[in-house]
């Protein structure tokens, strides 16, 4: 836990300093922090509970739309909208999970794609619900304590808070009962049951937490975009990006997804300046490399070696 606290402190310090050091790259910073948060939230379900979801962009869109529609239609301030989004996300995740948790690995992933696609079609076509394909525009936002929510600096700090909170939550979970229950269910459901764990209940909790946190990030993303279109938000590719970020970085670890986010967003930026597009090529190449050579992801492999070395050292003493 001490390493995690140290890591969080480091993230906080670097995060606070970044806008002053690189003020011209705020957008990249915001993207990176959002992905740290999204990948970490995804990982609660995909890494810790072991259920790979390729439909998480749904939760991103949910958060964003709640904020946008809340503001433009009901004059609801973003923090209230986000709270509602959290409840909605948890409820939908519960129903969704209840329906599909009987499915094994890849089939579950396929079902998440199908579900997210259906929601995307609904978002595009149901004008009364989401404003349809033309999208929603956030014209104005409240100014709590005189803070301008449209300013990139404010959005950056919101994203930073999001990243810190999600990683902090996972760090907390990792040492407590819930974290171990998740790992047990992932490793061997029968063994977990013999230990008194209800696999469905654990997976549902993971799904609900994962979805709710992702939606929070979605709300911040909505403020960042200020103009929302369904195809940008409920987008299969976004789901894939989030999932791959966590997998490449290292599933089931506290810092893996964050590391993945930093690596991928940075290299994406570098790639974009040289090739101007197709930066997803990197995702493709990295995931292939991971599957073939480092199946536990970068930090996953590292942590495995550390565990062995720690044991070897203590056995010698």
């Amino acid at each position, binding site marked *: 836990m001490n390493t995690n606290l140290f890591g969080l402190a480091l993230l906080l310090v670097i995060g606070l300093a970044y806008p002053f050091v690189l003020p011209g790259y705020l957008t990249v910073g915001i993207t990176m922090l959002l992905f740290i948060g999204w990948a970490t939230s995804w990982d609660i379900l995909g890494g810790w509970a072991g259920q790979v979801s390729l439909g998480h962009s749904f939760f991103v869109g949910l958060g964003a739309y709640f904020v946008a529609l809340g503001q433009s239609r009901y004059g609801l301030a973003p923090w209230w909208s986000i709270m509602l989004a959290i409840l909605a996300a948890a409820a939908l995740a519960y129903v969704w999970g209840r329906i599909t948790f009987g499915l094994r690995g890849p089939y579950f992933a396929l079902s998440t794609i199908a579900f997210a696609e259906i929601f995307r079609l609904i978002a595009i076509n149901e004008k009364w619900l989401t404003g349809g394909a033309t999208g929603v525009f956030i014209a104005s936002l409240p100014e709590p304590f005189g803070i301008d929510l449209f300013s990139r600096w404010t959005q950056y700090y919101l994203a930073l808070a999001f990243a810190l909170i999600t990683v902090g939550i996972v760090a907390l979970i990792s040492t407590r*009962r819930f974290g171990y229950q998740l790992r047990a269910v992932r*490793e061997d459901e*029968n*063994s977990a049951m013999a230990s008194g*764990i209800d696999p469905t209940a654990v997976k549902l909790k993971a799904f609900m937490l994962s979805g709710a946190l992702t939606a929070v990030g979605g709300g911040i993303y909505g403020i960042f975009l200020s103009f929302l279109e369904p195809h940008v938000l409920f987008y299969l590719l976004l789901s894939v990006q989030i999932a791959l970020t966590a997998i490449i970085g290292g599933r089931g670890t506290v810092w893996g997804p964050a590391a993945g986010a930093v690596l991928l967003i940075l290299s994406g930026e570098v790639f974009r300046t040289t090739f101007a597009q197709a930066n997803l090529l990197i995702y493709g190449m990295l995931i292939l490399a991971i599957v073939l050579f480092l199946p536990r992801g970068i930090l996953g492999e590292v942590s495995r070696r550390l565990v062995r070395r*720690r044991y070897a050292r203590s056995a010698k003493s």
Partner: protein
Amino acid sequence: MPEVLRAERLTVRFGGVTAVDHVDLKLADRDILGLIGPNGAGKTTLFNALTGFVRPDEGTVFMFGREVTHLAPFQRARDGMGRTFQTDRPFEELTVLENVLIPTFLKHPSRRSAEHIARGVLDEVGLSDRADQPAMDLNLARRRRLELARALAIEPRILFLDEIMAGLNPPALREMIAFVRKLREKGLAILMVEHIMEAIIELCDHVIVLANGEKIAEGAPQQVVADSRVVEAYLGTD
């Protein structure tokens, strides 16, 4: 002595095969019941039906007087049923301590107290020196002890042992037998499926013999082993 486990006319069918055929069974408190029989007799299926991992087609199971026939395994675990797995199934990626922590969390939700108690269990089975070793690196004898530790960590009142003696060399076998005997003295009722006759004879108060899914003999170990029907079942008839 109060009955902790009772099965009545328990029957399990797979497709056209009757794996367990109307078996009756009783386990009293602080008793050790052995379940033996030739390969394919249906012992594992019966074992799984009793512990909730297989649904019986007919019959009932009672645990501590309550009917549990269709109760999920994790629910039974919470009610006091501990079991080991024949193919030892630790959580390979986790350390020995973490493996025992998980079942300990059942009765002790707080990390600190759970860890304290888990370390105690590790002491009992003699795995304290391996607490930080990944489970996948253990040898067979230690894996077996870990399996036992995990079952004990949920603080069971009934312990179901699935061929816990299999594959152990003589010294490890003697240790395990002594350990199981000590468990009974602590107040556990035990049902053990076994092939190792030495363990059956030394530990069991009663023995049930299964062949082709049916119970063909029941009684004290010495009796049962000498029973001609049992001998026939093991050697096969010509």
